[in-house]
């Protein structure tokens, strides 16, 4: 239960978790474990390992391009599991598999749960799996001993927030605003309402993502939530430094700027 332990420890330290999303296999499967190590050195507390998909409807252009690069490089569900195994052989950082549903269905939900557990993955978030359709998948993944993380959105009415809370373990992923993934200038005021409404129905830690790309935004969100997710901003750094020997160093430095901003900030 690495995820639960992480949030307990951070609660005692009175700081929110820094969660980083990266697309596994971008720019190539053999690089990802090193990129994750750099993020961890920079102070990232939890990694969302994205499975690339050909038709990522919830993602903006940055993660769409990353998915294309990863697929071009031959990344599959099986290779993402291998990447997780490599990461786990040298680190205890919590890992959440972040995927669209179809590649997981094709792999087989039972097999996925079993293999993910064996490779050291701690939880699973399936972007386009609504709670209404989730019973079999959640049963299989939980049976394997993994957490199941679901999304909640500013558009979700209270009834849906309750459902999302019921299906989520480890943490709940709050979407900060409507729209696709990608960096934005402002954090929307509706986020505060969403956090408050969600706190009414669950004690599970709340991580907030979508559109957070600067230390200032991270600190602002960190005052409300138990975790701050940064995705596209990291993926953009990968994109800008595909062939640069400095990629790891840049990821580490950017992660450090974010984690520093979160010190002394408590929900």
């Amino acid at each position: 239960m690495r995820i639960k332990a992480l949030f307990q420890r951070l609660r005692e330290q009175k700081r929110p978790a820094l969660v980083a999303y990266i697309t596994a296999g971008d720019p190539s499967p053999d690089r990802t474990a090193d990129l994750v190590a750099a993020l961890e050195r920079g102070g990232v507390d939890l990694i969302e390992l994205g499975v690339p998909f050909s038709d990522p409807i919830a993602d903006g252009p940055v993660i769409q391009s990353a998915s294309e690069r990863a697929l071009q490089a031959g990344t599959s569900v099986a290779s993402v599991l291998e990447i997780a195994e490599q990461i786990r052989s040298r680190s205890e950082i919590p890992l959440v598999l972040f995927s669209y549903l179809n590649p997981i269905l094709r792999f087989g939900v039972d097999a996925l749960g079993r293999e993910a557990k064996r490779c050291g993955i701690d939880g699973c978030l399936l972007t386009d799996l609504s709670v209404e359709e989730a019973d079999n998948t959640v049963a299989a993944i939980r049976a394997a001993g993994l957490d199941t993380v679901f999304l909640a959105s500013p558009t979700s009415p209270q009834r849906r927030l309750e459902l999302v809370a019921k299906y989520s373990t480890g943490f709940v992923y709050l979407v900060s605003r409507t729209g696709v993934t990608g960096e934005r200038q402002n954090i929307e005021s509706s986020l505060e309402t969403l956090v408050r409404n969600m706190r009414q129905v669950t004690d599970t830690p709340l991580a907030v993502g979508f559109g957070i790309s600067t230390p200032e935004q991270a600190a602002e969100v960190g005052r409300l939530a138990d975790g701050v997710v940064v995705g596209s901003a990291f993926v953009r750094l990968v994109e800008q430094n595909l062939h640069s020997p400095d990629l790891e160093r840049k990821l580490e430095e950017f992660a450090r700027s974010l984690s520093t901003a979160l010190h002394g900030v408590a929900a």
Partner: protein
Amino acid sequence: MTGTQKLDSPAGAATQPDQGGHFGPYGGRFVPETLMAPIEALEAAYLEAKADPAFHAELDNLLTHYAGRPTPLYYAKRLSESLGGAKIYLKREDLLHTGAHKINNCLGQVLLARRMGKKRIIAETGAGQHGVATATVCALFGMECVVYMGEEDMRRQRLNVFRMRLLGARVCGVASGSRTLKDAISEAMRDWVTNISTTHYLLGSALGSHPYPMMVRDFHRVIGVEARRQILEAEQRLPEVIYACVGGGSNAIGIFHPFLEDKSVRLIGIEAGGQGPGLGEHAARMSGGSPGVLHGAFSYLLQNDDGQIALTHSVSAGLDYAMIGPEHAWLHDQHRAEYTSVGDEEALEAARRLARTEGIIPALESSHAVAEAIRRAPAAKGEVHIVNLSGRGDKDIDIYRENFVELDAQGPDYAH
């Protein structure tokens, strides 16, 4: 006949999805959480409208006086005689305003959008027929219209791009993936999730998350309701066979659905066989695909071993899509409808044959259904067959020119 009957009779109870939008195991709602509340709101608004006689009265009025319903059921005598078998009737959806069946659904959904207070309409389009129909109803109701279209399809269907712009729509080219219908739907979904409060997504086929497959089908049921009445008048009996092409499957489900309880009527859906059976060369989901999730629904899908969506090919942009509508998947598994495929060349040849025997130039999509009728009719003497002629071929003239070079002024045989 009242509008409620048009949507619900004569076989309205034949297949309805369950509360979650499932046809057997297919369909459902597989979308990110941000879209769940809007989809629930859309379903509630649709069910309310469906029960409102005023909604049907307005829709019927538009279908009659604006779109041109009912469309004729035409006995294609010369085509039938040249084949020497079944009597072939054509359900002339190609004669509707904008040139295809798509307008039926667009009128229904734009009225619904107005009920919901939406001011902005977005849509995807493949062949451009749905985009043109959407741009048309938006002009009619003074709504902002944005149509997403793959850049490859924009190239193939230049005329329709221009028509949409002339009607006041903004056409956004989509450069990702295969640059066809699949990518246009992904981009429309991204727009919708970003602009939920102002925007209605006017999805153009019996695809996507519940309630779309049910709702789009209901708006097209009028095709089958009319055809059933018309064939009973013309022949005093039901047909043996009905043919319809299947991209997402909206024209097919529209004509099939009112016949579902008429077990003697064989329903045949024709997918795009493209250039061959290899993955990426066709859009034959039933023979070449397997169940999976794309764009909100669970259905037969062309995908590779890793669950990535496969590229597709068809000479017909409207059939060039990796998933078939979920109700078709269910009808297939129940053996209530049969699905087959026709390749590019055979479809082109069927178009030429229909043009020359009946003076009707069909859309390339509809030509696939005509081709299947040409295959089967000779062995079916004494039978009555109906082809859903879902669209007209004006939009495809450039492609016909490319493929029938001998007919073109630039070609080698000008006098032909």
